[in-house]
Structure formats: C-alpha cells, structure tokens
C-alpha cells in the first residue's frame, strides 16, 4: 500500500496507487469529512469500471457517498475486510481500508490525477 505522498488523487477524494495491480481507496481527508463509516458496498471482481463513474458506496450514519473509479479498468480484488469492519476506512484509509484493486485498461488515464501536493492545494482551495 502507498504512503500518502505516493498516491494520486481525484477531485472526489479517491486515492489511486498505480501499478500492474493498482489499488483504490478514499483519502484521509474524505474519511474525516464522512465521519464514522458504517457500511461499504464494493464492486464485484471482474466488473469493468469506467473512469469517474460511481463504482462503490460508503455510508456514514446519516449520509451516503458514491465512490468514483479514478481510472477505467477491471476489478481484480476487493477488500472483504472493510465490508466486515467498515471502521477500517476511518482507522486506516490508505492501508487496511483500501477498497479494491483493478487492472487499468488505459494506464495513461492516471496522468490526469493529482499528485499529493496538488491534492493538498485542492483541499485547501475547496475549504474556501
């Protein structure tokens, strides 16, 4: 799993760690904003995802958040641990709380994502 600085980020607060088997999760900022996560619905292994299309749902007590796939690709693994214990998303969003892995179908897409510094700026801007 990535260090926060190594991941790339979307404007919808997903992180993406590139590689042959890339992984996806939500940022620490996102889990803070959501509050206590109580339920996670993940895509199915083998499901084909499209960049920026909803592919998972994360629920807190009084809100539900769509998770958008950072890039297009096919799901190769999902993190069953978070469906059993959604608190992992709060405790460890970048490590134990990863959501799914996928095989990107268009590796070039990840270039459009923000790096750590850009994402930090983005959060600061959004706060205003």
């Amino acid at each position: 799993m990535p260090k926060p600085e190594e991941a790339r980020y979307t404007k919808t607060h997903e992180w993406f760690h590139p590689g042959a088997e890339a992984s996806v999760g939500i940022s620490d900022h996102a889990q803070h904003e959501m509050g206590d996560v109580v339920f996670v619905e993940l895509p199915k292994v083998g499901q084909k995802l499209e960049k920026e299309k909803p592919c998972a749902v994360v629920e807190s007590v009084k809100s539900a958040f769509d998770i958008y796939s950072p890039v297009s690709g096919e799901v190769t693994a999902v993190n069953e641990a978070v469906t059993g214990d959604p608190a992992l998303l709060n405790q460890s969003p970048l490590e134990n709380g990863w959501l799914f892995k996928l095989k990107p179908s268009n590796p070039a897409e990840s270039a459009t994502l923000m790096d750590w510094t850009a994402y930090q700026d983005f959060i600061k801007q959004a706060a205003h």
Partner: protein
Amino acid sequence: MICAPAIDNRLSIEKSEAGRRGLWCRNPLRAKAKVPAELRRKSPPRLPELSEFDVVRHYTRLSRLNFSVDTHFYPLGSCTMKYNPRFNEEAAALEGFTALHPLAHDTCAQGTLELIHDLSARLVELCGLDAITLQPAAGAHSEFTGLLLAKAYFEAKGETRNEIIVPDSAHGTNPATASMMGFTTVNIASKPDGRLDVEELKKHIGPKTAVLMLTMPNTLGIFESNIEAIAAAVHEAGALFYMDGANLNALIGMVKPGDFGVDLMHLNFHKTFSTPHGGGGPGAGAIVCREQLAPFLPVPLVRKEGGKYVSDFGDGRSIGKVKAFFGNTGVLIRAYAYMLAHSAAELGDIARYSIINANYVRALLKDIYPSYSKEYCMHECVLAPGADMTAKGLKTLDVAKGLLDRGFHAPTIYFPTIVHEAIMIEPTETESRATLDEFAAAMRDIHDAGVADPQTLKDAPHTMPVKRLDEVQAARQPNLHW
C-alpha cells in the same frame, strides 16, 4: 411529563412467563379446524406470554417516553404538527365506518361513498382543479401516483418524456419517486434567496421534460413569487407543473393552486388536514389534477348516479391500482370531519395564522438565530445558530437536544440541505402566542447557556430517558429484533 428514567427498560419478551395469557379465543368451532400436519409450522413463533395488565402497563409506560403534539410543542418544519382534533378520532371510530368491508357491495357502502364523494368535491374546489384520487396512502405515495399519471398522459399523446426537474431544495421523496419510476432527475440549483432560478429552468426544460416538481411554499418557507413565469416556461415546453403540497398549510383557503398554473398536486392529510401522525403513520394522500389527466386516475373513483353513489372503474385508461382497495379511508374520514369544521373563510385562517406564527417566532429569534432568508417567511422559517454559538463549536444538533431538556420537541434539523446547520421551524396555526413566547425563551436560554458553558449543551439531553445514542454501533452491527 416524561417519567423519571425507569430502571425497567425491558422488552415485552423479557417480561414473558411461560403459560401466562392475556386473551383467549374460545370459539368452539376450533374443534373443526382441518389443517394437515405437514402444512403446520414446526415451532411456535417466539412471542411474549403476558397478562393483559402486563401488556397495558408495558405499552403505557412506553407511551410516556414519547414527546407528542398533545404533550409538547412540536415545531417540526415541513411536518405540520398541528393539533389533531379529538372529534376527528371519534368520527372515524364510528362502527358504521370501521366495520365496512372494502369489498362490500356499493349498496352497503352508501355512507362512506357519500363521504368520499363530498370530500373529493371540496378538495377539488379548494385546489382550483378538476379531479381527484384519494387512493394514495401517504405523500410520497401520492407523488408516485402523480408521476404515473403524467407518464400515462404523455404516452397517450405519443410523447416520450423521461426527465423530471426538481430544485435542490426539494424533499428527498421527489427525486426518489422520479427514479423509482425510471425517470431521470434533473436537479436545478436554487437562487441565493432560495427561489427557483427561472433562467436555469429555461435552460434545462425542453421536449424531454415530463414534469417540474415544485414544493410551494418551498422548503425554505418562501413562496415562488415568479410563479407565473415558472408556469409559463413549463407549459411552453409542453410539460406538466406538479405542486408538492406538503406545505399547503401556508396556502390553504388563501390561494387556489390551479389559478397559478398547477396541473397536478398532492395533499397530505396528516399535515394540512389535521390527521394524527401516529409516530410515523398512517397518513393519507391525494392527487388533485386537471381534466386532461383525469382519465388516468387510479380506480375505483366514486360517482353519483341517480341519487346513489357507485364505484367507478373508469374506461380502461386508468394507471391501475397504487394500493389494494380504496385508500386509507379511516384517515379520509378524519380529514372530512376537519373540513366540516371549517367554512371557506376559516380555511383561509389556517394559512393566515400559520404564517403569522412562523414570522413571530422568526422575529423573536432573529438577533441570536439568524434567518436564512432576509424576507418574511410563509408557514415556516429556516434559522441557524449565530456566529457566537458556532465560535464555541456549538451546532444545530446541540440546540435540538437542548430544546428536549427544556420541554420542547426539536424543529427539523439539517434540512433543507442547502442551508448550513439548518433549523427549520413550523409552529402551525394551532399554537398560542404564549407557547411561542415560551419556545423563544427556551431558544434564548439555550443560546445564553450554550455560549457560557458549551460542554453542558454538547452533552444534552440530560433529562430524557436516554442520553445521546450510539447510532454508529446501531448501523454497524444492526440489532433489529429480540
């Protein structure tokens, strides 16, 4: 008065004693029962075994843990928690009404059919429209019925329209209903004053638009003053104008929605027409509409034919049934009793005093709980904690809980979602000035005490049967039955 936090918070099943009984069925025909062994259940249902007194005491005790309109001021915005007249209850409990089977022959149901017929006529006139169905069981169910009518109407015209326009201030049921029926919801951002942006509307409305759903007054308690432009835009696009009537209490007897171009609308009897909410239901709804939509109404309707009332199953163009049988008749009887108690002018007073009461509360609180809108409100006002409270980390939720400790139910909170930290107050017309003064004093006390000692308010409520509950655990590991 809420009873002191009781030690006994057992469930009914935890009070159960094997062999104890409340009621018996001793009908001797039991001996003739014929159910083969292989069709019988293997184990009895796990239900409590209690005496009648056990049951009565258990549920009476539970009732005392509730706030209710009869016991507490209950200013829930958008819910219209007005007084539920006792007469309505007594009328609906008349055995002539309660014992009537829904499949009874029309000749046995003349009283109820006449009531439905008369109630229908009065409501159609009140709305300035042409036809009505009383079949929906609730507001959301009415929305569903209304959109089905729209769908059938356009299909009959050979038009394919699959978009529903909804402003972002709408009740959640509007987009939920649209999507349930396969429509695409087009959300329109409101203007800063909370009103629908007519220019935005014009950008989004077109040949694909089936319906504009608009709550009036909107969920900020503001009337769409550009209503004529809105209706014109809708009709120019060939679409229908649906009014969500959840907030009709502000308008009843004061305007006719049909006059400003509404094509169809729903009513919530458990709001405007004073039927009780029952802890979440039952309610009842209606769709009132223009003539061109009438052929598609759910069946049966009631028609008068040669001095007799008959069920009318239409000419085959109906959308079908949205509910088994007729509708929530027991609720309609209450609404009719309420209508009998009001002349046309007295219906207008409902709107008048609901508006005066809301503005009065707003005026009493404006220095410490700023109002979202700078203008006068209709039947409800949307406020938020002031800067001195937010500076201490106090939130709307804390205000809500502080009210419970002071003997008032909380207003609707965090809705509409477009207002940050919203506190939505709907006093209704049936509350006296004295009650509103007491409420305002409590809000003031919460403000003062909260600013002086934020932590105590953050820990509120202190006097309820339970303190703040762990909703996270409830959702993560749901425990839904004994």
